[in-house]
């Protein structure tokens, strides 16, 4: 996580790392809350899938990664992007469809990518990142520099065959792939348990890789299993599977109510349970750090304000930027690469 370095100056590296995680979760939460508001109020060019409630998984995993480790993400990718060190300004500009966007407005929410940070990208295809991460892991193995390739995917994606294929290849070649299943119990508007046989973790076990099922709303727990998996990668010991059990608070996408037209796939009560302070990954971690004396209410408020400010600055940046270059797509496809 790139923000770790901003805390290098602090006396206590562990405390700094904890605050950095909290900071990054706040940034993700505020960024996505703002996206929800904008989607509702003025609209955004395309749809957005928010990961509100799932921040601990993105941040816990990425806290153990270096900038040059690889990462692939999903349609629900803003959190992964920011956790891996992506920049909120250029992410917003991308979602707003501007030429200052990280993908120059060509990709949008579902395709945010930043290769300079190892972010291969979000993906509009459920399961689309699995084999790509495995390919990046192959590159990492050939590079012999101890890099890892993390693949985020959902419990819905775990029913795509490419999940098993990629685990198989990663295992036989001992690739440094880390399979991170964010199990939020939902696949779009379907309750995953109705379409999923057995335990997902057993699928990974069948390929002989170490498996950890972890409370995905406990950022420290996630970071700890991630550390072990990353170390395996660094030592060339092969892939790991991590399942972060979590929940998405918002709809599948922000236009959900319109699509459902009165139908529903979960109850408000269910959502409320996960909204509680002792379940929410941020308030939970905040309270823990407070109890440990690492983050008093003033420090937290200051961090919260800073995140909010950063997000508002990003909105201003996006709104103030020029629209995408309408000729860029053509240029990208027909110029360059001929070698």
């Amino acid at each position, binding site marked *: 996580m790139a923000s770790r370095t901003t805390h290098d100056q602090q006396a206590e590296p562990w405390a700094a790392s904890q605050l950095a995680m909290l900071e990054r979760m706040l940034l993700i939460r505020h960024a996505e809350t703002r996206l929800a508001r904008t989607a509702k109020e003025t609209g955004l060019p395309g749809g957005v899938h928010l990961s509100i409630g799932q921040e601990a998984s993105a941040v816990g995993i990425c806290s153990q990664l270096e900038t040059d480790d690889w990462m692939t993400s999903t349609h629900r990718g803003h959190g992964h992007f920011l956790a891996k060190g992506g920049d909120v300004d250029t992410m917003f500009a*991308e979602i707003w*469809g501007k030429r200052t*966007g990280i993908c120059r*407005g060509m990709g949008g929410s*579902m395709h945010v990518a930043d290769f300079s940070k190892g972010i291969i990208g979000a993906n509009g295809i459920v399961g689309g990142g699995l084999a790509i991460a495995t390919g990046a892991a192959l590159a990492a193995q050939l590079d012999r520099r101890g890099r890892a390739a993390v693949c985020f995917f959902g419990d819905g994606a775990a029913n795509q*065959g490419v999940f098993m294929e990629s685990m198989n290849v990663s295992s036989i070649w001992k690739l440094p792939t880390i399979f991170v299943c964010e199990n939020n119990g939902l696949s*779009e508007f379907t309750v995953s348990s109705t379409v999923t046989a057995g335990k997902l973790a057993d699928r990974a076990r069948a390929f002989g890789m170490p498996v950890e099922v972890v409370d995905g709303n406990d950022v420290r727990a996630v970071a700890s299993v991630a550390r072990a998996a990353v170390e395996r990668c660094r030592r060339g010991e092969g892939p790991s599977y991590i399942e972060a059990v979590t929940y998405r608070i918002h709809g599948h996408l922000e236009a959900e109510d319109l699509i459902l*037209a009165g*139908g529903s796939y979960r109850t408000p009560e269910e959502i409320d349970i996960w909204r509680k302070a002792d379940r929410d990954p941020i308030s939970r971690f905040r309270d823990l750090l407070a109890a440990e004396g690492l983050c008093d209410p003033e420090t937290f408020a200051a961090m919260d304000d800073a995140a909010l400010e950063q997000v508002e600055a990003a909105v201003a940046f996006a709104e103030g930027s020029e629209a*995408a270059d309408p000729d860029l797509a053509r240029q990208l496809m027909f110029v360059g690469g001929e070698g």
Partner: protein
Amino acid sequence: MTRKRYTQAINEALHEEMARDPKTILFGEDVALAVFGDTRGLLAAFGPERVRNTPICEATIAGMAVGAAAAGYRVIVHMLFSNFIYTGFDAIANQMAKLRLMTGGQIDLPITVLAVYGGGASQAAQHSDSNHPVLMNLGGVDVLVPATPADAKGMLKTAIRNNRPSFFLQASGLGAINGDVPDGEHLQPLGRAAVVREGRHVSLISVGSMIRATQNAAKQLEKNGIDAEILDVRSLIPLDEDAIVASVVRTGRAVVVDEARDSCSAASQIAAVIADKGFSALRAPVKRVTVDNMSMPYAPNAEAAVFPNADDIVRAASSICQPESVQA
């Protein structure tokens, strides 16, 4: 006749055909809650045996359609966005399109695949493909792109009821349009193009989603003294070559409008048909208004720059209708 939205017309066709034949089943991701509204109410009406939410596994969804159809059912499958057809493509291209031939005609495959295609809504590259050309080349599946609610209903009912595998592709830009739909039983034969507007100077041949841009173009052209005929092809496999050629014989000129990427597009296929069978009537080059060899960019202005629009059609038509030649 009742005025209905395109999606409603599909929904009605699904309800009617499932009621008609108890061996008709429907499955796909999230069909119970109807992501696009088209499968709404089917679960309640026909129960969880015949209407099933699947896991996310397009390869198996498509393959199961083949197996269940081969074993005697009439299968409707929803693939959501037409980009996800690629994810299930092996079962489609290697099995669905070939099994009847390979088994020497032992079986029919009454399969109808639903998917929403096309750009225009900033859904970006992976949710905006117009991939009817890829399906048209498979050599064993019908490809339908109705442009009106009436055709949507009539053609979908025909496709479900016949015994051929077919892809029923709904343009994402057309889902909300309204139109008059015949009440009660309405079966539209496949492979018949429709003359939507008669004209003397040029044939604008429209594929699926492009109908509105084409109609707007015709209005603009009229102001410039060019009287355009509009042909809505409706069905790509089978393709109504006779109607296409007949239109060109009437006008002597053709512009083919297709949201697909140009290379091996439906537009190119239609242009090729005209260059062969309509050649003697042709008085000008056959123009294509299509998308360049690329996927849809996300930003609205960048997408608009790539997306075929009425101006593009007017420009193409005008380039082959010089005032003097039009008067001739």
